[in-house]
Every structure is written in C-alpha cells, then in structure tokens.
C-alpha cells in the first residue's frame, strides 16, 4: 500500500501572515512550536502513515534553501525528502502543477506544512483506498461554533461550508471563502441522488488531502484556472462527482475509466475475462457514485490545528502544552513530578520559582528566583530575571527578560530583550526587538522595521 502513496508537504514561504515572527527571514516551516520546528509535525504524521517518498515544496528560493539545509543537517527520520522551490506567488494547486512530473504514486497525500495533528494518516489513507475515492479530505471539528460568534441574520465569516451525505462519508458540497457569502449554491443532482444533504459550518478543512493522481492531474491539466487546492481544486472535484453522471465516456479525459463500459473495454481479456468483467459490472450503475470525494472526520478529542497566522500560532503553542497532547505529539515523557517538560540543563532559581504543568522549557535557559511560568513554552538559552511572571505565552530562543516583567498571552521572538518591569498583554514582540523599561503594552505588535535588515 505504501508504494502507491506519495506525499507532498506544502511548506510555504517566509510568509507575511506570520509577521513579525519571521521578520528575520526564518521560513514558516522552521518556526518553533513546543520548541520543535513546525515542519517536524507534518513529517511525523507522514512517517506514521508509512510513506516513503516526500516532496517538500517551499515558495521562493530562500525559503527552500533554508529548509533544505535544515533537513540535510537535522532530519534523521525514515522519509526520503526532496525539497523543491516553487515561485513565490503561486497558489497551492499551482505548486502541485509545477512538480507534476515528479508525482509518481497512484495516490498523493498533500499536507500543509503548518498542520499539527495527531490524526492517524493510515486511517485516512485506508478510507481513501477502500472507497476508491478520487479524493479524501480531513475535516476537523471547530472548537467554537461559528454561529455562536455571529449575529442572527448575518452570515458567519471565514467558515467552510461542508455538505455531506447522511452517513458523513462523502463530501457532496464544498464552499469556502474568507469573505461573508450571501448564497450557497448546492447542486441539485447531488441532493437528488442522496436525498439528504447536511451542510455544516462546525467543521473545517485542515489541508490534509489524499488525491487520486489521475483525477488530480486531469483536473490540473484541463483547468488552468485552478490555482488553490481549497478554493478551486476541491470544489471542482466535488462538483465533478455529479456532472459526469450518465454521460458517455469522453475519449481524452483521464477519468473515462470510471464508466463501466469503458473499463470493460479497457480490461485485457485474460484467463477469466468474464469474471473480471463481472466484478467491474457489478459496480455497474453505482460506479459513478462509488468513486467520489470521501471525507475523514477527526473526532473532538483528536488534535488537529494549523498554525497559519500569528493568532493560531499562539493557540497551537498553548494547546500543545496540555500534558496528554504533548505526549502524543512531542513524543516526550513529562517530568513525573511536575508534569512538565523542563530540559535537564535548565537552571531554576531555588527560591520560590515555579514552573506549571505542561510547560516546555528548552536547554540552557536560566530562571531566577521567584519566577512563575504557567502554560507557556520557553525556548533554549533564555534568561529570566527575578520575579518574572509568564502566562499563556511563547518565548523563543535566546530571549532575555529582566526582573519584574509580566507577560500574558504574548509571543516573544528569538533574540528579543525585555527590560525590567515591563508588562505585556496580548502582544507580539518581533525578533531582536528591545522593549524599554517599565513599558506597559497591550494588544500591540512591536518589531524592528523591515528596513533595518
């Protein structure tokens, strides 16, 4: 089975969505989450799925060079990784198109480089394989219901409208747009064929797909307008499930094999041609409905989240500090006494310094007396002065925090320096930035201007 699957990681660029976290040129894939590089999470998922060949696509030469040198130096897993760069501004589907000649497996797993998930890829691949699907998509439940955040009479923002059959096995309708939509147009053929169609907004597409290579390439080749996987390719394949119904097989299209007669004609008559043909014919009328777009629903207790912007980056970091999750994702055992992940080389102040459960602290970090760290991630080689309180925050490597600082819901990037007695709430501090003494910041993003480097 493994041979039939090949994977593509969409590792992204030095994107602007995560500004200012990567303003010093760190590609998104190499940002730390729970003190590990982001890209290790999707790679881990792929390892688990038993996949061998992986293409890592980065937008832009710089990003790809950095990622590829990181992989060369640090990656020791069983995957055979190949890094490819694609043009800076290409969409996700465009990226697939540029490497189309490299795609060899019968089925392609496409995973976003920022997906942190503990969903078993094997199960998704099996779903895809068993159903002979053209594509399978992983959907994760949202933490909060979109309707609870929307005023009655208004359409919700930034949701995926997902239409499924009664058994929640097939994707029959898909629409997504960051903007508010006013009307959804659900295809009548789908509704008539299935009788019931449930459209829901409380799930989200997390950018893990398995595509049938043939179907995917046909779509990419015949529709040059398809640029993004989520916005264009997925809706196209979902629609295509129904439009081919009852049509004569068209000679040039790749999926002509899906109509029964065509397949019978194509099948070579071997020793038992009748039996073989019978097998195909038994799919008969249902054949077009057998091959469709499948869904795999993650359950509520499975973790599945993307770090696609600063907000979600902080969220993922926060979530990952939950003990049982860290166990699954980081594959580290917590310190049995405090239930946290403090590296052995960390120097803890002896006087009233506490590190809460689930916190992750990297090597060679020094915490002075009376420090308190709760539900936070602190990188390596940081220095925290006395009386520093850190709550729900992410502190990257080599950060200095002087005495008396209070941090809450804040991200501090590598090399930053917070002078004494600053208070920060819901802030982002860019790399190498220096926060002045006794500053009181709230809901602010502070970073060195781009021009300086």
């Amino acid at each position, binding site marked *: 089975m493994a041979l039939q699957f090949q994977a593509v990681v969409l590792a992204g660029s030095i994107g602007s969505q995560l500004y200012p976290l990567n303003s010093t040129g760190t590609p998104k894939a190499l940002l730390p989450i729970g003190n590990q590089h982001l890209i290790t999470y999707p790679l881990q998922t792929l390892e688990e799925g038993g996949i061998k060949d992986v293409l890592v696509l980065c937008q832009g030469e710089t990003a790809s060079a950095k990622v590829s040198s990181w992989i060369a130096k640090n990656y020791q897993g069983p995957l055979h990784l190949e890094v490819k760069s694609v043009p800076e501004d290409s969409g996700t589907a465009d990226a697939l198109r540029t490497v189309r000649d490299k795609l060899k497996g019968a089925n392609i797993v496409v995973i976003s480089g920022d997906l942190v998930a503990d969903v078993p890829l094997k199960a998704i691949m099996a779903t895809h394989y068993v159903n002979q699907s053209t594509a399978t998509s992983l959907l994760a439940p949202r933490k909060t*219901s*979109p*309707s609870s955040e*929307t*005023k*009655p*009479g*208004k*359409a*919700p923002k930034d*949701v995926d*409208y997902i*239409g499924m059959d009664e058994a929640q096995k097939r994707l029959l309708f898909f629409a997504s747009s960051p903007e*508010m*939509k*006013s*009307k*959804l*147009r*659900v*295809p*009548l*053929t789908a*509704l*008539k*064929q299935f*009788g*019931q*169609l*449930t*459209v*829901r*907004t*409380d799930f989200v597409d997390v950018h893990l797909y398995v595509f049938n290579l043939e179907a995917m390439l046909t779509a990419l080749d015949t529709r040059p307008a398809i640029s993004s996987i989520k916005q264009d390719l997925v809706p196209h394949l979902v629609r295509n499930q*129904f*439009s081919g*119904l*009852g*049509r*004569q097989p068209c000679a040039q299209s790749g999926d002509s094999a899906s109509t029964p*007669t065509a397949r*019978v*004609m194509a099948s070579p*008559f071997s020793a038992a*041609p*009748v039996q073989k*043909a*019978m097998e195909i*014919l*038994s799919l*008969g*009328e249902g054949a077009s409905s057998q091959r469709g777009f499948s869904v795999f629903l993650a359950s509520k207790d499975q973790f599945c989240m993307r770090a696609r912007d600063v907000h979600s980056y902080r969220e993922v970091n926060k979530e990952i500090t939950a003990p049982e999750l860290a166990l699954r994702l980081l594959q580290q055992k917590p310190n049995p006494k405090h239930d946290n992940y403090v590296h052995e080389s960390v120097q803890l102040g002896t006087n009233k310094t506490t590190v809460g459960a689930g916190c992750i602290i990297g090597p060679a970090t020094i915490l002075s007396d009376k420090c308190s760290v709760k539900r936070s991630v602190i990188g390596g080689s940081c220095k925290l002065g006395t009386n520093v309180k850190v709550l729900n925050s992410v502190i990257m490597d080599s950060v200095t925090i002087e005495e008396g600082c209070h941090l809450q819901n804040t991200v501090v990037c590598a090399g930053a320096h917070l002078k004494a007695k600053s208070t920060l709430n819901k802030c982002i501090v860019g790399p190498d930035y220096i926060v002045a003494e006794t500053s009181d910041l709230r809901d602010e993003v502070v970073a060195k201007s781009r021009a300086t480097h």
Partner: protein
Amino acid sequence: MAPRKSAAAGMEPKETLTAILLADSFTQRFLPVTVERPKVLLPLVNVPMLDYTLEWLAANEVEEVFVFCCAHADMIKEHLDECKWSSQRTFKIHVVVSTNCLSAGEAMRLLDQKDVIKSDFILISGDVVSNLKIATVLEEHRKRRQQDKNAIMTLVMKTASDAGHRRRVGDTELLVAVDSQSQRLLRYEEHDGTGKRSKAVPVDAHYFGERDVIQLRSDLIDCHIYVCAPEVLMLFSDNFDYQNIRRDFVIGVLSEEELGNKLFLHVLQHDYAARVHNLRSYDAVSRDILQRWAFPYVPDTNLLHKAGPWGESTYTYGRHHIYKERGVSVARTAAVKRDTAIGSGTTVEDGSVIDASVVGRNCRIGKNVRITGCYIHDNVTIWDGSLLISALICEGATIMPDVVIGPGAIISYKVVIGKGHHVPAYSSISLCRRVEHRASFSDDELEYAQAGQQTSPSHSGSESGRRPAAHGRPGDLPSVEVIGAADALRVGAIPEAEVEFEEHIVGRGGAGFLWGHNDPHDDAVTQFSIAPPLIASIALDEAGSDDGSVITVGDDVQDLSHIDPEVSFKREVSETFLRCVKMGFDQDLVVIELNGLKIAEDRSFADCARYVFTTMAGLCLPVPAPHSHAHSIKEEYRELYNDSAPDMATQAGRNQLLARFLAKLKQWAPLLQRFLKTEDDQVELLLTLEEFCGEEGAFEWSGERGRLFGHVFNEVCQLLYDNEVIGEDPFDAWAREKEHAEEDERVFLRKAQPFLDWLRTAETEEESEEGSEEVEKEDEESGEE
C-alpha cells in the same frame, strides 16, 4: 359527575382537541369524476376517502371536527348524517358550508370569522389516509409553543423510501431545508416539473448565523397534516391573498422571517400517512392499503363501515393480499390474483382474471375478462372478453363485450362503452359535456397556479367547478335525457330521446362524451395518471437535468409491481442486447453483458438467448408500438429498428423480410450457438419462436408484430438450420412434442412441415434404413390435415 367538575370555580377547562377538515381539495385533478360527486366521497378500496380521515381523527381522540364543505356540500352533509359518528357524543362533527369558496385560504378566513377555534388544532384535508399517532406530534408542538409562542405550525412529512417513490405517488418534487437540531423549517420549495429550473439549490448563508448544521432534503413527502396554533387562522385573515396552504402560507411565513413566526417539521419514521391528491396517488394509496401499510385501515379489519349508507362490510383476508366480502361469487375457472379486493354481490364468471385491482359491490364481470391494476366502483357491468388495464371505472358504468380499455383511462359514472371498442390510453369519458376547452393541464388547480395567475379567479376553483356564474364551468351535470339514453343503451334498447353520443369515442351503442384525451408522450399526463409511470421516464428523472442522457435503472422495474416478471426479464434482455447493438460491441462483450444479466436475474443462458433472438428478429421490422408500458422501447434504441415493414402479401415482401433476417442471423448466429448448447435449449428457442409469431405470452402486448414472421415460419426454420443455430434433432424433438398437441397449437408445425419433410429426406438419404418409416408416418399425418 363530569359537568360538575368542569364547572367548578377556578378550574381551567380542559382544552378540547379540535380539527379542521377540508372536504374540498380545491383542485381539478379528478375531473371529470368530480363533476358528479365530491372527491372525498370517492371510494378508496371501497370505502369513501372521507371515512379514513374521520376514523383517524376519532382514533386520535379529536373531540370536535369542523368539516368544511364547498362543492357538493349537500352530498357530504348527507353522508355525514348517515355515518356512524352522527350519533356519537365524544366526536362531534360540525359542518361548515360555503359554496363560493375557491381556495383553502378562503376557507380558513371564513373559519377565522366564525371564531370557533380557540386552541391548537389539526388541519387536514378529507383525503388523507394515515395511521399516525398524532399525540407525539402534538406534544412536541405544545412543548415548543410553551417555550416560544411563535412556533405556530408543525408540518408532518415522511421519507420517500426510494427515488421512484415520489413518482409513484404522483408528487411533485419537494425540497426543504431544516435546522437539523430544532427541526425548524427554513425553506420549502415545490417544483411541479414544468418550466426551467436551475441546477443548483440556492441556500441563504445567513441561516448559518443562527445554527451550524442545516439539512437539505429532497427525500420528503408532505403528508398534508398540520398541527397549528390559532394564530394560523389569524395569519390567513391578515394576508387576504393567501390561497394555498403550502404555496402561499408556508412559503409566505418562511419569507417573512423578520415577523418571527416559525414552522417546524415532524418526520415520520414508521407510521403511514399519504394524501390522495390526484389519480396517481389514488392508485398508490389504494395499493398501500391493500398491501397493509396503513394498518389498521385495511379492508379485513372492517373498521370503516360499521353502519351508514355503505352498509356493514364483511371482508376477509386471503393469501397474497386478496380480500373478498361475503357474497362474492367467483367462477371455478376464474382467477383472482394478488392485491385485489372485491365487494359483496359481485360475480366473476368463467375464465376471467382479476389482478391487482379493486372491484366494488354488485358488479358483474363476464367471461374471459382480464382486469389488471384497475379500480372499478360499485354496480359496474363488464361483459365478456373485455380487457382493462390500469383504468378507473366509476359507478354504474357498463363495458360491452370485447372492449379494450388502455392504461390511464377514466370511465366516469354511467358511461356505456360499445361492443368491441378500443378506448385509447389516458383518455377520459363522461356523460357530462365539457363546457370549456382549455389545454389539458393548464387549468390544473390553484395549488399549482403561478403567481401571476393567482389573482384571476378563472384559474382557480373548487373541485366541481361551482364557481361564480360569470366564469365557465368545467362541465354540467348530465341532463335527464342523456342519462335516460345511456340507461337504454346499457340494456341494448333504443333510447327514446335522440341523444347524439360521440360514437368514435365510446363505440357503436355506447354512451358518453370525450372529456379529454391526453397525449401519452406528455410527461405531465403520465405523471399524474392512474396508470403507473413509465420506467423510461423514471430513468430520465434519475439521470438529472444535466444533459438528458439516459442511464438504465434496472431495479426500478420492481417498482411497477404488477408487471409480469417474464415480461420484465424479456425487457432487460432486449435492452441489454439493443445497447450492445447500438454501441457496436463485439460478441465477447455481449456475452459478458448477458452473463451479468443472467446472474443478476438467476436465469439460464437459453433464457437470454431466446429473447436475444426475438429482439434480433424484431429489428427487421419497424419500432414496435406496444400496448402496455412494460414493453415500451427507449427513445435511444428506436433508430436501430427498420423504417418500414415489408408487405407480407407479396413474395417480394416476404423475401425482403427474410433477407433482413438472414443478415441479422449471420451476424449473431455465433452468439446464439454459444448460448444454445443442448437440444433442450434449442427446442425452447423454437417454442419461443412460436410464441413470438403467435404473439402470445410475453409477446402478447409487446406490439412487436411477430405475426409477420409467422408468414415465413417455414423459411425461418430453414435459415436457423442452415446457420447451425438449431440442429436436426431439436427440430425432430419439437415436431414429436407437437404431434399430439391440440389442433390450434399445431399451426406452426403445419407451417414448418415442408422444411421438416426436407429435413427428414436429407436424413434418409444419409441413413436410409431408419428414416424411411418416419417419413411414411409424417406423410400419413399431413394427409390427415
């Protein structure tokens, strides 16, 4: 005790459960039958429809019913006075009459004015058959009402069992959107199948502002049972343009979301509920009752006529859903087959076959009559040798001998059909004359009228057409002279009054006028007809509106329950074969296709080969014109057939047919050889060829004109032999088998005699000793004939 209790001070009076029953559906779908009788009094499996609804209301502990009558109000009143409830105290029936109401909306406004409804009530029309326990729906409704005063109505719907179901009950397409958690109805959309429609269902995204999950459903059938709050009546008064309950009220309330009124859905899981709103559903619901889906409302519970004008009923149940009342006499050689009910006093004479039909009381069915899928009301006489397929025959009609009545025909009250006449499919005949001539279905009913027409009263109307005098009526009641003349013709006398009946419609000696003949190729006609819809059109429906290409829906054949399995198998084989011919498949592929069919249908290869052979022979002739739907040929295969039929009277014509046949045979002989390996198989083929040429058995109604091959039977045998499809021995065996058959079964043996003789001679030449005796024998025999 009881009165004192309720009079006690400070005690709230118990809410009485009331119902509004609309005894007029404000439609014209049952014309011309409803010109003379109200629809709710039409017998449904020999019980007036209204009784099912009343019985159901009584069983659900409804205490007061307001029966709203419009057309034929006097008849309905009379019926209610005589029925078993008239004397009951716990179930009070109030009759509200208004003869000039044109729509359900007006009826509702009138009831609102009368101010008789004070609490939650059930709204139902007098043609609903159900065994649902409404208590659960009521409880749900009341609970919601306590929390939210705006939850004004609960609609009862049921799930269609499969895609063909909706078509079977003659329903139009229905799309609904509901909040999957609260079952609140968000959108209700009906399509009557006419006009253009988009390929997508638009769903307002703002629905998702209040909920995460919305269900879109196309698999629901509206049962037309509504639990309403009193506000519903007020809303009808407030919106004086509301006419139809669904089209105006439901859709109106949903579109005025900002007013806050909410509608909810209750989807039935196991209960039965269905409305008889056109002839199609009349057939479907009757069948459901016969097949006991509506239990306890089945004939043998004899629930529905305890007393009343129809008298007590005495049905007993027999195997295969056959119900007979006491005093039914069926001749020994007559057959009553599955799904049939027969009322008391009816006689069925020798050789007649009744299948999947309902026959009323005091009917007389003569000898060798065949009745399939028909509804025959009381006091109908059908004389010898007639054939009736999927027709509705109303009370008092007379069918003279040897009449053929095609599917979907309606023979209204007291009509007489003359001897030997053929009533074409989908025509309706009545003693009433149609006054106004409009396009057949444009005047449908208010329910399906488009928005622009709603203001015009001429397009709306109560079922009998008792509309304001300024507008035309659909028909007048038949005059005394007409009835007198018909009665005279019925007994074969010469009528006193000179009435000119349309003889080309009802035959010589018949009485009646054409009400309407409808084109059987018009989908709107067949969709609502009493005859089951065509298989091909179901398939078309399934294929979606995409590009109109047809996919084969083999399973749907089962839906049409009264098609002979042999006929449907024949059809399957022939369609498979035609497809192969059309696609130009080579033999190996055809073998595979047929093999699949053979396994699916659990038949033998010879079975397939027999019908492949007849289909192949059929291709030498023009497209068959079948007498029943079961045989109709799909549009796409029509081109495969020959354009013209050769003139069999001339030698040239015969040669032409044989030449065509030979060409086909040359092509397909290897296939037939492959399937017909044993002697028995080959004999079977000969027997089928006989049936084909004699137009018997599965070919009886197929219109394939196998008769033409009968003229050249001898030559066909020769060709089959020459092409090694059938060997000597099978011919021999066949001839021997037939030797002792009755005279009329030896027709083809006689025809093939020259060939058989030749065969024997050829044999003798080879093996002279054995053969000579037989030849002598044969000679003797032919001499006798």
